[in-house]
């Protein structure tokens, strides 16, 4: 029996070691919905030696921007991002939670000034990485349901 039913990709990005169940949130961050021009492969609940179970997302013909990798770190802090060029792993990164999340989250407080029409980017201070706890730089409120507030 074949262990993996997914074929290697020629060019693109493989996001591995996503905590089991979080692949759909990663797809949402990458904006993968209706208008996709290349192949996207999602493997969910795959056995993993290190993690027990994991998810994997493969996106062909696309490399990720730094801000997208920061967003992935918010929902999948264990993920690794492999850039594939001509069937080879050209770059391998572990996602890392930044100390400050700038421009990637929206404050959950509707009365926060960062949600008004002001010329500023949202900014959250990461006060704890495990469990992940982030606080708005402006109104100082803790952001609950972080995944739902990714922009």
């Amino acid at each position, binding site marked *: 029996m074949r262990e993996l039913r997914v074929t290697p990709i020629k060019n693109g990005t493989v996001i591995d070691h996503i905590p089991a169940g979080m692949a759909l949130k990663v797809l949402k961050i990458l904006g993968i919905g209706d208008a996709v021009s290349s192949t996207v492969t999602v493997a969910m609940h795959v056995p993993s030696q290190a993690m027990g179970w994991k998810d994997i997302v493969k996106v062909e013909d696309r490399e990720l921007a730094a801000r997208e990798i920061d967003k992935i770190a918010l929902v999948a802090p264990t993920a690794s991002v492999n850039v594939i060029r001509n069937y080879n792993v050209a770059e391998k990164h572990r996602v890392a939670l930044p100390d400050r999340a700038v421009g990637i989250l929206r404050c959950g*407080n509707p*009365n*926060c*000034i*960062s949600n*008004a*029409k*002001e*010329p*500023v980017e949202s900014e959250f201070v990461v006060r704890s990485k495990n469990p992940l706890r982030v606080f*708005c*730089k*402006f*109104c*100082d*409120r*803790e952001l609950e349901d972080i995944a739902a507030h990714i922009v």
Partner: protein
Amino acid sequence: MSGFRGRDILSIRDLSRADIQLVLKTARRMVPIALGRKASRALEGKILGTLFYEPSTRTRLSFESAMNRLGGRVLGFSSAEGTSVQKGETLADTIRMVEAYSDAIVLRHPQEGAARLAAEFTEKPVINAGDGAGQHPTQTLLDLYTIWDEKGGFSGQNVALVGDLKYGRTVHSLTYALAEFGANLTFVSPPTLEMPREIVEVVKEKGLSLKITHRLEDVIRDADVLYVTRIQKERFPDPQEYEKVAGTYRIDANLLREAKRDLIIMHPLPRLTEIAPDVDRTKHSLYFKQAFNGVPVRMALLQLILGGAA
């Protein structure tokens, strides 16, 4: 002269214990000037911009009085009506304009985080005079001054905070500060308006004595300070919830017969029914003095931030 010169005052938590003590001591020296018994020209030639996007009586007037008493001048607005704000100008743009006209900016705004945003757009010092349900550090400083001035310190004082402890911003900042200074705290509120859990945790981490109750009668005998707040209708999403708890606590002269002789009663004002008028005539009432204390405390801050000769 001090680490205050040119500094923003956005949240009480930005101030160290030493910073707060310096403000309190400076404020005491300002009292004769605040009372008009002594003249000062310490801030002559300085201009304070006061931007009040929502109404405020005590805070605005006491800042204006403070600046005038120190020989400085004030310009600004007391509501957004009739200003470029109404034409849709961003706070960031308004701040950059006012920066050109003044030496420091006092901001009251209905949205949380407004003062921090303002501080990002100007090199001039910004003083937060209340941002929505967020911070109001000068209120906390004048509350601290009132306790310190009357009681000589904070450590070991039994301070009961009464009323809306969930939405009331002044009690949150005051709790952090009093915990820092080692006061014994009691939280008295209706069950639906209890102090938020994260603030209770901060007090517990300091290893301080902490009591939580729903009954005013439980605290009246032991309290040294009763800090009473109004249950604010505007902070309730649901008017029915407000009706259920409005008027839960009422302090009157009769209740105070069991109190310590030197109990002081404070209130950030305006009050509704939580303190009966007959308390005003007792030696316990301190809320009008507390309102006056806003002047020397704000004078102290302006003096420290704008730096003239003392």
